């Protein structure tokens, strides 16, 4: 693998995630596993959002809709139709992808703030729709039949399995993010981000490129959704489409550095780590949202390129390993 130096941009993030995945087993701690699960989930979601936000430059405030929608569809088939977790993952990813394709055709021609508002509207509309959709349990949602866990060897085994699947999804998200970044498709996305009109004059078929970016950014979140609801044992509309979680994803991507592969990962780590600390600290518990808000404000005002972005600007040689 004499080419490995060229792919440091992928290897470093992968090592971080693999380390995180092994940490609970090495320390033999269930609470570590819970923490790691949350961080891995954040990494998978943030890296996926990065494809749309960081590479293509389209700000989605309602990206969590794919987590919720794919999750709902997947859990429906898992719980009501008796599918296995594996096929449910697949259908979750596909349904999120299809939703993204259809939505993308409609809203990707909006620019800037109008696009952001449209994504919020869509998240609320889908949430409200699911609330009324009896097949998905309406406002009560769906509760997982406990016997589903038995198929995987009982609740404890099922949760452990879910953890490793989440790690797998995080790894998949990073690989996809990297492959897009170094591909010709990814270059087209970056061109769109920098100047969409100039990119089209150059020959980038922007409408298609944006749609595929949107689809790619939606698939893994859908799978993360069904896995999360499987682990939690239930899903209901309010918890499936939380707007604030959508914004937290944005914060993670911005914090670490949008448009880079490692950025969302660092951002996810930092943000979840900070939240974890704030929630358990007596002093900060109640105002943790304020502290997060203050940190976000400082970043937006003073380090808009995020941690990795700042490093890339400042130290040109680092650009090779921090794509």
């Amino acid at each position, binding site marked *: 693998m004499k080419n490995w130096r060229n792919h440091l941009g992928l290897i470093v993030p992968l090592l971080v995630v693999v380390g995180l995945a092994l940490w609970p087993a090495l320390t033999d701690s269930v609470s570590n596993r819970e923490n790691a699960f949350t961080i891995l989930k954040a990494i998978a979601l943030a890296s996926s959002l990065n494809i749309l936000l960081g590479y293509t430059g389209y700000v989605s405030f309602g990206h969590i809709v794919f987590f919720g929608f794919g999750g709902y569809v997947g859990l429906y088939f898992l719980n009501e139709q008796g599918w296995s977790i594996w096929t449910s993952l697949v259908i979750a990813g596909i349904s999120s992808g299809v939703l993204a394709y259809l939505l993308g055709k409609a809203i990707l021609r909006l620019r800037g703030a109008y696009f952001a508002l449209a994504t919020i509207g869509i998240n609320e509309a889908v949430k409200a729709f699911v609330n009324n959709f009896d097949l998905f349990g309406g406002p009560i949602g769906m509760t997982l039949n406990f016997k589903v866990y038995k198929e995987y060897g009982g609740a404890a085994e099922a949760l452990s399995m879910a953890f490793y699947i989440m790690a797998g999804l995080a790894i998949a998200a990073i690989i996809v993010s990297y492959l897009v970044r170094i591909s010709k498709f990814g270059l087209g996305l970056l061109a769109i981000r920098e100047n969409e009109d100039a990119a089209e004059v150059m*020959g980038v078929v922007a409408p298609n490129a944006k749609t595929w970016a949107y689809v790619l950014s939606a698939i893994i979140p859908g799978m993360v959704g069904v896995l999360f609801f499987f682990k939690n044992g239930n899903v209901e509309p309010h918890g499936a489409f939380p707007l604030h979680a959508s914004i937290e994803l944005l914060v993670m991507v911005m914090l670490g550095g949008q448009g880079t592969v490692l950025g969302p990962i660092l951002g996810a780590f930092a943000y979840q780590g900070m939240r974890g600390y704030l929630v358990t600290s007596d002093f900060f518990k109640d105002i943790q949202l304020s502290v997060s808000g203050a940190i976000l404000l400082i970043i937006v005002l003073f380090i808009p390129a995020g941690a990795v972005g700042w490093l890339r600007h400042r130290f040109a040689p680092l650009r090779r390993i921090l794509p």
Partner: protein
Amino acid sequence: MTPLLSVEGVTKRFGGLQALTQVTFDLPEGQIMGLIGPNGAGKTTLFNCINGVYAPEVGRVRFIGEDVTASKTYAMAKRGLARTHQIVQPLEELTVRENVIAGACFGRENHSLSSAHDIAEEVMEFVRLDGRADQLAASLNIAQKKRLEMARALAARPYLLLLDEVLAGLNPSEIGAMVDIVKKIRDRGITIIMIEHVMKAVMNVSDRMIVLDYGQQIAEGTPEEIANNPQVIEAYLGDPELAKKLMGEE
């Protein structure tokens, strides 16, 4: 021989403003055509109608024999049309090299990243930006950004290159260097239309010229003919003596 580009009766309106009226000309392959006229005459609007930014209300645009009126800009790029802009549009957060590679990847020849890489090397050397290949486009000065825009357009190996005021804002030595580049591009077989205000330069490099005033084509011909055309002189050059001076001062 079908002309490379055929503009037939192109008319463009913006609400009440008549930006272009019945502009018509043929452009054979291998020529450099100069497009001049006072500010607001419609020159950039004409470019926009040719490369797909606008659709003309009336008229046709034919490129390599095919009717391309109102095509999308990316479709025109794939057909072999490239352009630079009056206000440069670099991809700021990408390096010079990445900018040029992008030009090669998405243009007519649809290169992969690796072959685009090789083309980019060659083109950057041609415009003398190879020393800055790994600098961010945002860090270049205006003259360098103009050369970058040119390089990006050339990397697509177009049949027709539309240059919009590539000399604006350059000092005399930079102008000389850019004119050399334009001539070398033509020598490679690329057809060029140049919008310019720097009279001396464009008159010396063009094979043919077209003059627009208030959206209308008021003259067409060789630089000598244009310089002596009374309508042009009145609308644009102002001073009849100036024309003679410019031509004599070769």
